[in-house]
């Protein structure tokens, strides 16, 4: 059997007294889009931060294309170039223009020439439809545009997998659509992604598998259809109901922006 792109084996993580992750395992094949959801405080962000070793797990292993990245002597910086990350609060570099935000990794880490880095960065910005905003500072961009720059920043490094941590939850409702659209586009283009989100519309459109995390444990996993038709656990059902009440569904938003594109 082929080695999966990302294999997470029995990951545990605690902050001081608080046990946050209690043995999480899953696998991710090439071109997979995995959606992780669950109530607040269930450990979703922690899981992502374990995967790119910003907070190394207490125990358990993580394999990226067969390399154990939790082993003691691994070069974490080299690993992180292979794992992209998109943050809930964007975390764009405030002192750099959009284009420089995207190219800084290419130049400082991959050591590309200035022109080459700029060309690649523009390409990435193009994929999130922001090429004409390249020379603006983050403070001059809307939240949705900032998050798309964040996505381009991760894309430009051409990582094996991109992690998204609630990329739309800090955005005003009318800006969510454009970010989801950008994510849809790159997912359809074959990018492997792990997405923490409560946007069920997005999940139904592209997720190959969904994972429901609660209190640091995987409660239930399955296809989007599985969760929309017949979730087994009561907690999942209750949670999905609450989501519908709170957020509604953004499927309409997605369609809207597709129509706009068509014009």
């Amino acid at each position, binding site marked *: 059997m082929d080695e999966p792109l990302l294999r997470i084996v029995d990951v545990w993580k605690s902050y001081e007294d608080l046990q946050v992750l209690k043995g999480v395992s899953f696998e991710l094949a090439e071109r997979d889009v995995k959606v992780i959801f669950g109530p607040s405080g269930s450990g979703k962000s922690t899981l992502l931060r374990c995967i790119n070793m910003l907070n190394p797990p207490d125990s358990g292993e993580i394999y990226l294309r067969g390399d154990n990245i939790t082993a003691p002597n691994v070069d974490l910086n080299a690993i992180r170039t*292979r794992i992209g990350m998109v943050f809930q609060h964007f975390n764009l570099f*405030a002192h750099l223009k959009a284009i420089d935000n995207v190219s800084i990794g290419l130049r400082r*880490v991959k050591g590309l020439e200035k022109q080459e880095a700029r060309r690649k960065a523009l390409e990435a910005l193009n994929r999130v439809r922001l090429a004409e905003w390249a020379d603006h500072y983050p403070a*001059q961009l809307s939240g949705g545009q900032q998050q798309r720059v964040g996505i381009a920043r991760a894309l430009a490094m051409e990582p094996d997998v991109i992690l998204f941590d609630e990329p739309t939850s800090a955005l005003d409702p009318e800006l969510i659509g454009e970010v989801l659209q950008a994510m849809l586009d790159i997912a359809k283009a074959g990018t492997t992604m792990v997405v923490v989100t409560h946007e069920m519309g997005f999940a139904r459109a592209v997720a190959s598998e969904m994972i429901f995390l609660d209190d640091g444990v995987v409660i239930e996993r399955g296809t989007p259809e599985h969760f929309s038709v017949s979730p087994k656990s009561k907690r999942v059902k209750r949670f999905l109901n609450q989501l519908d009440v709170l957020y509604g569904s953004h499927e309409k938003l997605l369609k809207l922006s597709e129509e706009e594109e068509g014009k």
Partner: protein
Amino acid sequence: MIFQANLIEELLAVLGYWDRLFSGFLLTMWMYGWALLLGFILGLFLAILRVYGGTIFSGVATGYIEIMRGTPLVAQLFFIFFLPNTLNIPSEMWVIETSFSIFNKEISLKLLDYPIFVGILTLSLNSGAYQAEYLRGSIVSVGAGQLEAAQSLGMSRLSSIRHVVLPQALRRVIPAWSNEAAYLPKYTVLVYFIGGVEELFFQADFIQHKTFFPLTTYIIVSIMFLITITSISKLLEFIHKRTAIPGL
């Protein structure tokens, strides 16, 4: 008192020593420049150590900063000045002198000898501790998210600090730091305590004893300091405006 004496006469008498005031001013600015620069380098180093240094290094940096900020400059100066003597280390220094003439007056200026060296060193060590605190504040205010984002791109910790955190921190620190920078010149008068450094205050003392017009002399020196400090302030403000970036 001033109103009884002939003000003009006093002014002229004191200003007759303009060459001394001028060379004193130059030496003051010379010491200020070095103290600011060395203090900044030390401060930056201390601030980075304090924020990112881990328990031991940040403890050492914190200890240094607190001690320098908690003890008087005068005591620090005396302590450093007499230290070689106590430890039996020779304290001879290179002496650098320069001289030039303007308006037919020969002005000779000692730029470095042991007292001047001690003055610059003390001021740098002290100012470094204060500058470190400003820098630390601005580094902390940049926030952990920026560092994490840089690291998530695969940048090393050092490179993240250098290319992402510091450029923002240095811009943010300018307003608060300007205060320290602009007011540092007035602390150079401190070297008066060890004597023999012919900076502005020394010259004022000299002129005062020659002319017997202390009030006029010190007021003129005060005005010189006020003008200097205001100009530095304005200059830094200008630089801040020029380097401003939206949202920072």
